[in-house]
């Protein structure tokens, strides 16, 4: 009995020790749209990709993140104001596009086609950065009425992408960088420049980070010429508008 307990305790301690091993690598909480680009910039860092708002909520609950990279500036700004992270800096920009499945079942060739009745439009939840950008685009184009065609509000941009790539939804709004990851499955329909929202990504060091030097080094790497070049390769825009 005692032996069993001792063995069990030893196992738990060993398992948790392994899980919390502090290496020189930071834990990075990053917007889902960074899923492909970030591991190329820092292959050894630990990543958690999700909707920026979910990640921000987790950081507020004390999640063990060292870096927070958000698809907007509002979320890291709010975290900074409340003392949860350092002052964010903008590290890249992006644009929105409309995507349709390659088979284009609803025969959509532009944003205005979304007004047709019965279209299955998939967007992100309004709390997710890409969700609020989507609402902005529709407002800018005077198309807020198409929201009645929304069949699902997804929790991050990659969920929107998946539903369209799978052909279940007729159209969806994602970042141009997401659309590029599945060129064989979706058609990209451009959104006019005048209707584009200002999509800026903010990055900051989480205040409770136990590994701030690594966090600092990661951000430096993202901002470095090599890091920025990698971001451009994945279709992101330079952090400063030229």
């Amino acid at each position, binding site marked *: *009995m005692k032996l069993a*307990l001792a063995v069990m305790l030893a196992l738990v301690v060993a398992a948790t020790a392994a899980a919390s091993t502090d290496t020189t690598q930071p834990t990075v909480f990053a917007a889902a749209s960074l899923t492909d680009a970030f591991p190329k910039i820092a292959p050894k860092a630990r990543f958690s990709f999700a909707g920026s*708002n979910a990640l921000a909520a987790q950081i507020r609950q004390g999640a063990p993140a060292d870096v927070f990279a958000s698809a907007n500036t509002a979320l890291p700004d709010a975290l900074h104001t409340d003392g949860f992270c350092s002052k964010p800096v903008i590290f890249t920009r992006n644009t929105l596009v409309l995507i349709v499945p390659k088979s284009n079942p609803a025969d959509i060739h532009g944003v205005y086609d979304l007004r047709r009745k019965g279209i299955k439009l998939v967007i992100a939840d309004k709390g997710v950065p890409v969700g609020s950008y989507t609402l902005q685009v529709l407002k800018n184009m005077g198309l807020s009425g198409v929201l009645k065609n929304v*069949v*699902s*509000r997804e*929790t991050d941009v990659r969920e929107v992408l998946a539903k369209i790539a799978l*052909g*279940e939804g007729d159209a969806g709004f994602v970042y141009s960088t997401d659309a590029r990851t599945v060129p064989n499955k979706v058609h990209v329909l451009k959104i006019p420049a005048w209707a584009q929202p200002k999509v800026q990504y903010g990055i900051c060091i989480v205040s409770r980070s136990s590994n701030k030097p690594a966090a600092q080094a990661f951000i430096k790497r993202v901002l470095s010429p090599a890091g920025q070049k990698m971001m451009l390769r994945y279709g992101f825009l330079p952090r400063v508008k030229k």
Partner: protein
Amino acid sequence: MKRAVSGLLVAAAAAIALGFLILPMLAIFLRVPPGRLLHLLTTSIVTDALVVSFKTTAIAQVLILVFGTPLAWLIASRRFRGRGLAITLVELPLVLPPAVAGLGLLAAFGRTGLLKTSIPFTQTAVVLAVAFVSSPLYIRAAVAAFEGVDPNLVAASRTLGAGPGRTFFRVVLPLARTGLAAGEALAFARGLGEFGATIMFAGSLQGVTQTLPLAIYSAFAIDFDTAIAMGALLVVISAVLLVFLKLVLSWRSSGPTSSFLFARST
């Protein structure tokens, strides 16, 4: 001395186990003041999700009863080739990760799936997801309940001139009803908690496909307190279901079938 120490260890382990299980549920209620909790429950996100949850789960349960009961009866009363396989297949969704269930439903009922339906993103999709993950709980319990019915009573009913249908409804069902009700309550509870398959197969839209668990997930990132309020609501609903289940089981035991489902609390 040695015995006292090991007794203490057992008690300590038991206390840790109990505390560990209670703490998260308790914490949900301590996080937000009760007044605010109740207020948050009146927001449209919560009420819409509650309606969607109960509507879809209720419809799923009707389907489970209508189609699951005959299947359970066949499995319980017949000995046929592949019976073991049938039982295993019925139980498989129980141990299947919900995300796999979601994938499977998309692959089967998706617009580009096997059957090429337009079910995804509709309330029907939620019903199917709930039915898929929760029906095994009912069918399993129903098979056990039917197997617990004394075959002599069935035979006697038939000898006395009752047809198979009459025998089923007048003899078998009443005898098995405790086990059936228990299985149904379990399936209902599991259905209310369905998340993974639903979000993949049905998406999430307030008032249409956004059930309580989906609304919790969506609110978590926007408004933690509202998520907590819905969490508290689900804890209460689950507790009520569990108490109901225990009551059902204590009414009248339909043979050896019901006691394995839950430990008796009396």
